């Protein structure tokens, strides 16, 4: 039983990475009906920018130019990185997606994939193939709750991601821009005629999604401090699966499906040999989609959907 709870904590942590990344896919989809296939690599870029910012702040702090406690460095890193990475996302939208808005959807998928490859290779070319390690900003404490061990890192990761999701929810539900986004998701054709600037909204969606991915990248760097240029590939595709599983364009669904995928992976690895993890996880995904072909919260399939 203790073992079970221990794994629930692990799954929550693992799932929060997936959920944060899946949110970016899902938001972009709800506005543009397109998937941003460079999103996994934006997660990677976010982790690297976070690495740069954190290293820089720590260096400044240790040189005595500005005295910052570690928690403040973490908060600043998170904010600055999210801000910077959102521009990467907007750039991707400007280069790879805006020119292709009226093209067949698959073409935009290809540009997304190719931008992803460019980001990976660019990173390799700039920083080299050496893996970098994220600076330890938090000294690890382990708390014991009746045999269940929880590190403070895991708590921070889960709380920060939940807080970000809540903030996103509030933004989308309460703010004027959020309302514009929801309207755009509701009707892609008529809403621009009402004076909602589609380009701004699309860029903003990419920016917010990328900022969330950057947050996921930093949190990932805290939990697993070794970064490499291809870390975004597998994460990106898995989060894409989660976004679809949740029902395309559904923010709630993407969050839940992200956590679900985390749970499936952790618990499969707990019960079966870990080499079977992908096999069983994807078989479950396949089964879910065979019996619920439009995910948890997606609208039902009709032959009229835009393709």
């Amino acid at each position, binding site marked *: 039983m203790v073992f079970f709870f221990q794994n629930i904590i692990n799954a929550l942590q693992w799932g929060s990475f997936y959920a944060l990344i899946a949110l970016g896919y899902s938001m972009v989809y709800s506005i543009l009906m397109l998937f941003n296939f460079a999103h996994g690599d934006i997660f990677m870029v976010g982790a690297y920018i976070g690495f740069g910012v954190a290293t820089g702040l720590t260096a400044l702090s240790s040189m005595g130019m500005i005295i910052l406690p570690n928690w403040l460095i973490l908060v600043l890193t998170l904010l600055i990185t999210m801000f910077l990475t959102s521009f990467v996302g907007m750039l991707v939208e400007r280069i790879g997606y805006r020119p*292709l808005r009226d093209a067949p959807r*698959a*073409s*935009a998928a290809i540009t997304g*994939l*190719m931008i992803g490859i460019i980001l990976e290779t660019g990173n390799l070319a700039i920083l080299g193939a050496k893996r970098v390690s994220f600076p330890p900003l938090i000294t690890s404490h382990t708390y014991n709750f009746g045999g269940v061990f929880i590190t403070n890192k895991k708590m921070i990761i889960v709380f920060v991601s939940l807080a970000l999701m809540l903030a996103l929810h509030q933004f989308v539900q309460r703010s004027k821009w959020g309302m514009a986004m929801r309207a755009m998701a509701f009707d892609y054709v008529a809403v621009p005629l009402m004076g909602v600037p589609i380009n701004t909204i699309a860029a903003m969606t990419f920016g917010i999604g990328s900022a969330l991915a950057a947050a996921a990248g930093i949190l990932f760097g805290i939990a697993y401090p070794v970064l490499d240029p291809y870390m975004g590939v597998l994460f990106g595709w898995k989060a894409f699966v989660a976004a679809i599983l949740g029902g395309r364009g559904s923010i709630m669904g993407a969050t839940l499906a992200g956590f679900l995928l985390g749970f499936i992976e952790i618990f499969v690895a707990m019960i079966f040999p870990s080499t*079977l993890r992908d096999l069983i996880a994807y078989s479950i995904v396949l089964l879910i989609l065979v019996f619920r*072909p439009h995910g948890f919260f997606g609208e039902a*399939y009709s*032959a009229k959907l835009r393709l």
Partner: protein
Amino acid sequence: MQTSHGQKRSLRQRVGACFATVPLLGWLIGMLAAVFLEQYIGDALAEGLGLPKIPVLFGCLIMLKYPLLIPSTLAYLVTIYVIPICLVARVLAAPANALAGALVRLPVVAPTVAHLALLYLVLYWWSDISAYRVLTLKLTMIAIMMTLSLNVINGYMGEFSCSHPGFMALGAYGASVFTLVFFARDKLFGAPWLPPELGPFLFPVGLVFGGLLAAVGALVIAVPSFRTRGDYLAIISLAFMFIVKSVIENLELVGGPRGMGSQPNLASLATVFCWMVMCVWVINNFVRSTMGKALNAVRDDEMAADAMTVNTRKTKIVAFLFAAFWAGVAGGLFAHVLRYVNPGSFSIQKLAEVLAMVYFGGLNSVVGSIVGAVSLNLLGEALRPLELFKWIIIPLLLILVMIFRPTGLIAFREFDVAKLIRPKTKKSSEV
């Protein structure tokens, strides 16, 4: 000013007019002359021009590695390729036209086979220079098969299928197990069951076995495609790809993650060429048949197609199984060309490669697929000296193509063999 512009244009027109009467047969004969020339004087010429050896891939590798050798490489290319091809093609235009005219009167199979035989001769002698050329050619032909079969689903049927590496893996492992069990002494399966001399004759059976295995696997995707399409089908096919890879990784019987090696050397250039031709021929006929038109109907509007008595379920299932079969055959050839397979070679990267070839070349077009596969494959080889930057240049190129021609270079065009091989007299070229 006006006159100089006019002169330039007339020069271009004159060059164009000069070669307008050269039929495909003439070009092929010209190429044959060029590769003959390279065979006999290539070494001497390369040495004379100060090149380390015969430029393997049209000099791209040498030019990128040693920029100082660019002039001599260009001189080599002009002497060996450009001048002989143009000269022979132009001089022999009249007899080639006569020959092509005579061939056209026969049933369409005869001239096609004649052209293909010539093409094979050209490729054979061209690749005879080095093993690297042979390997590049074989892999390019396999890429053509992969791209074409993916185009059936993604282009003609309009789904976004991500499962092709999975089909390819099934075919590769199926065919490899077949040949290893029957014709090779192997540490996984022990002594061969049949005398290895039978290998070349039964190799097609192995490939078909691999293809059928892939087709059976495709049922996993075809059946859900009745109820869903678009993104959900993309995910189902993506999940299928991951599942296939993971199953193979966990099957110790076929070597697990270490892969499987020492396949018998059965995939010669001729074998791969024959299968490639067969693939192009069958797929070209398939997409021009009633079934191919039904695919297009399902892509454009499934409900309307259903109302027009197109059996959408049958169409979808046939298309998936058919495409998967050819992907499986391509996979089998791939395994026997490299003589080693491991699950890692059928992953996301392969998927990105194949998708890029399909969308670069052009959707819904057999010629487009061939162009896409050949150009991206050769480009990948030619830019090899740039190492990392190759992976920036090729994606940039693809993004540009997608922005300016969203459906690919040569999309929505039919591949008409009869038009390609007909003689080009003055009259028909004016039409």
